[in-house]
């Protein structure tokens, strides 16, 4: 077992809402190794953002959390809020989808990056400013010395996102959570940000958890991919495997539903049915009601099985104890 930076152990999160408890995340177990870039993919409502928020400790107090999240030997769920804060921004940082709401419109971008530095380290103002300037240059802000004092509204979406990334890596975090960091950006800018993230990860040896709904983005950046559906983790595999030999019916269906310039034109595969109501989720595998291969057994939650090195899937089509599926027909 290689050094795991983050160990998510049987985590479940539910929220109280009008219709009762909504089970947003259900029994997710996942290990993230130091230095890797792992993507969590799924459609909206699958629980990927909730899971990230659980790691960051940013869930509302009304959320019911079960399980454990171990980060470098500490169970994050056992910590108090003030202890959690020490991790946040320093060892674990997060980048959100909308850069505009991550930045305070009243302050210059440079000062916000500097503030992140000074929150966690005792540095003189001048030193913090110098470091912040260096970070802004590193993320590719042109004329950084001049633009240091500009407020966020003077920047474009892509530039703002770079500022947010600069602030997030300011204290050299071991783990960076990026929640759909490029979804709101134009495609050419998205490409720039993805390349930037990859360079930064290599240079600073940062572990990145990338949350995305776009498999293309995930292919660009990630070493491993985890697929979630309706709060359940259904498949985890090295990135090449996910595309070449997807095992779970949902993963296959999702890949088939994505229009791509690679695939010859024709009708796209459609997944029948709709996402389940998470306040009353179906028992067992939550994809079963829509699955072409469903069996009676699917009413029990499938056990995660390792089909090939690094490739796990939770589906009764691959029951434990059976020999691994022949990859060429999978």
């Amino acid at each position: 077992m290689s050094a795991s930076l983050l160990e998510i152990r049987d985590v479940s999160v539910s929220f109280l809402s009008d219709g009762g408890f909504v089970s947003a995340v259900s029994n997710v177990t996942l290990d993230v190794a130091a230095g890797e870039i792992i993507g969590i993919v799924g459609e909206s409502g699958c629980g990927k953002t909730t899971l990230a928020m659980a790691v960051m400790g940013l869930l509302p107090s009304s959320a019911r959390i079960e399980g454990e999240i171990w980060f470098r030997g500490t169970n994050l769920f056992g910590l108090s809020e003030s202890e959690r804060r020490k991790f946040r921004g320093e060892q674990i940082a997060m980048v959100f989808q909308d850069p505009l709401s991550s930045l305070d419109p009243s302050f210059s971008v440079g000062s916000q990056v500097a503030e992140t530095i000074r929150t966690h380290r005792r540095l003189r103002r001048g030193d913090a400013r110098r470091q912040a300037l260096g970070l802004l240059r590193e993320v590719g802000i042109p004329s950084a010395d001049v633009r240091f004092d500009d407020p966020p509204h003077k920047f474009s979406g892509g530039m703002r996102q770079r500022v947010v990334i600069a602030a997030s890596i300011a204290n050299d975090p071991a783990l960076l959570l990026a929640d759909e960091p490029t979804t709101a950006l134009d495609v050419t800018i998205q490409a720039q940000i993805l390349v930037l993230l990859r360079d930064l990860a290599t240079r600073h040896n940062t572990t990145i958890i990338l949350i995305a709904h776009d498999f293309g983005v995930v292919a660009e950046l990630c070493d491993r991919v985890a697929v979630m559906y309706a709060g359940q983790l259904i498949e985890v595999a090295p990135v090449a495997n996910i595309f070449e030999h997807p095992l779970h019916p949902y993963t296959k269906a999702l890949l088939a539903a994505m229009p791509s310039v690679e695939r010859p034109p024709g009708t796209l595969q459609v997944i029948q049915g709709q996402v389940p109501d998470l306040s009353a989720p179906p028992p067992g595998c939550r994809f079963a009601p829509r699955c072409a291969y469903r069996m009676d057994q699917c009413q029990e939650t499938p056990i995660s099985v390792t089909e090939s090195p690094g490739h796990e899937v939770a589906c009764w089509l691959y029951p434990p104890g059976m020999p691994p599926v022949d990859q060429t027909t999978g």
Partner: protein
Amino acid sequence: MTLVGQPVLETRALEKRYQLGNRLIGSVTVLRALDGVDLVVNEGESLAIVGESGSGKTTLARCMAGLVSPTKGAVAFDDTDISTLRGRSWHAFRRQVQPIFQDPFSSLDPRWTVAQTIAEGLDSYGIGTKADRAARVAELMSQVGLSTSLLQRRPHELSGGQCQRVGIAAALALQPRVVIADEPVSALDVSVRAQVLNLLARLHEDLKLTLVLITHDMTVVEHISDRVAVMYLGRIVEVGPTRELLRSPIHPYTRALVAAIPRPDPRRRMTSVPVKGEIGSAISIPSGCRFHPRCPIAEPECSTIDPPLIAFGEDRVAACTVEANRRSAEKRGAGKHHPAGRTGALGEQR
């Protein structure tokens, strides 16, 4: 390939400017959303207009649908300038070009039922009796694949995909000749996108609909469009048949756009950034070729010459003088060295 007919909708030197800031006090900045657009949409074809923010694609869509009046230039429907239409003739034109919008929920009046929304066009044009309308609504529901049990529902009781289909049904109610879909699937989940795209493709086939698809997502384009027009900062920079354009883009911006699409194939990652710099604003459009500040093959003259759309073969045009010069140089001297092939079948080095 759909059988394509005569031009049905055309824009001629279309310009649209917006004034920002107070006219009475202080300075006024001009935003050139459309800066001279010539585009032809042929009957029965499926045309995609692709661009990023600031490209002007949405403004173009609205001008083409007659929802916004241009500052200069004209939009012609069946060769008639629509700004000259009045009263009855305008009313007659109105129903021929129907829009579909991006956000499924705000495309429908939150207080109206599905049935009312779909029937709105029939209602305003006074088409048919109540019974006729009800029948037509039912027919449209089945065309878009929705059960009639949803007829009395309101938008908040439907999913995004269902709302979008209602929007499509409402657009088809008046049997328009052209449907302009502005980012019809961007706000939908991936698996739902497939449903709506398939639907649009099928309607295009079955109803011989002329479809204009506005999008920023190139991956959507190949599945549904015959031709693609690429826009940048208020101008069209390249037009061509979809597959060819995607496989061998001519204009450097098109190339960057195609290269920037994240591919679901980890073996072919971007080695470098496809294009540097920011998109630029429609308020201060660069001199000469508007793409030159970011262009990897820009020559000195690109900052002064504003290229028109130059023909590159039978049905391809692109607004790039450098590329045009390069190709004519190639034709002249067959042995000339030509720099690292950026063009070529998909899958080669970008």
